[in-house]
């Protein structure tokens, strides 16, 4: 039984290895390793507009390849990371940036966790205070379950 399963296991392994190879959709190698590192970082934080939950780096569609080409050329032309992000956002809107910008119109986005935390703190403080005052005014001994 075990011997008969082995070819199947090998097949599964082969399929896994193959799909691992297929995941690398971008063969780009820039001449300068520092530029390459920036290129990899940037393509991972820019959205593929066609398959919206993938990054440019992971997407196999043609538009993503075209946009990666633009990133490459902008970097080779000496643009900074922020200039590349701004170039993309000017054409596709902030939606293309996986990491939203710090801007007033994004204030609610960045501020909401703090506001929610504050609300939570106020609510829990009120509950705790309420319970403490309840305990203080309660002069009856706590009723215990009858032993049984």
């Amino acid at each position, binding site marked *: 039984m075990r011997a008969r399963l082995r070819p199947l296991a090998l097949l599964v392994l082969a399929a896994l290895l193959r799909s691992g190879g297929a995941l690398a959709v971008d063969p780009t190698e820039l001449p300068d390793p520092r530029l390459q590192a920036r290129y990899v970082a940037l393509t991972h934080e820019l959205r593929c*507009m066609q398959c919206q939950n993938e990054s440019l780096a992971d997407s196999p569609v043609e*538009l993503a390849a075209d946009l990666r080409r*633009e990133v490459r050329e902008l970097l080779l032309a000496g643009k900074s990371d922020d200039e590349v992000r701004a170039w993309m956002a000017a*054409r*596709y809107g902030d939606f293309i940036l996986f990491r939203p910008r710090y801007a007033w119109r994004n204030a609610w986005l960045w501020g909401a966790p703090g506001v929610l935390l504050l609300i939570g703190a106020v609510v829990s403080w009120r509950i705790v205070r309420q319970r403490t005052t309840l305990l203080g005014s309660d002069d009856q001994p706590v009723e215990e379950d009858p032993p049984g």
Partner: protein
Amino acid sequence: MNRFLLPLGAFLLLAVVLAIGIKHSPEKGVIASPLVGRPAPQFSLPALSDPARQVRSADLKGHWYLFNVWGTWCAECRAEHPVLLKVQRAGIVPLIGLDWKDDNAQAREWLAQLGNPYETVAVDASGRAAIEWGVYGAPETFLVNPQGIVVYKHVGALTDDTWAREILPRVSAVAAGS
């Protein structure tokens, strides 16, 4: 009474937020274009009918036009085609086509078979012009005014409804006002 005030307030706040979300739900999935309200991108691309001739954005200034991005590989574009022909027959706004990453021979055949609604078709073989326009899926249609400003963008197949409700009023309101 007081102890109901906070939950009630929270409930009302949530209800308002959700109501806004429901009201705007038809726009969900459509990504607002930063191009609307801004000048249309400049381009100079070979014409589909005669690749030796250039279609220039500068030559399009001075009148309204609909800039329609399509390709023969795009199924939605085939569904949209009858509407484009109707728009052409109406004779109100000329259609300028952008043939996006397509095969020229196939594109010419498409127009010969289905009818040609376009005044001119520019060929974007590299896909660069489409990126300048912020295109992420064909078909997409932009309405550009005589000053060269993009006033409206429609993503997906153009329908009789979008033509009547979104495009025609914008063009005729200005025509009536001037």
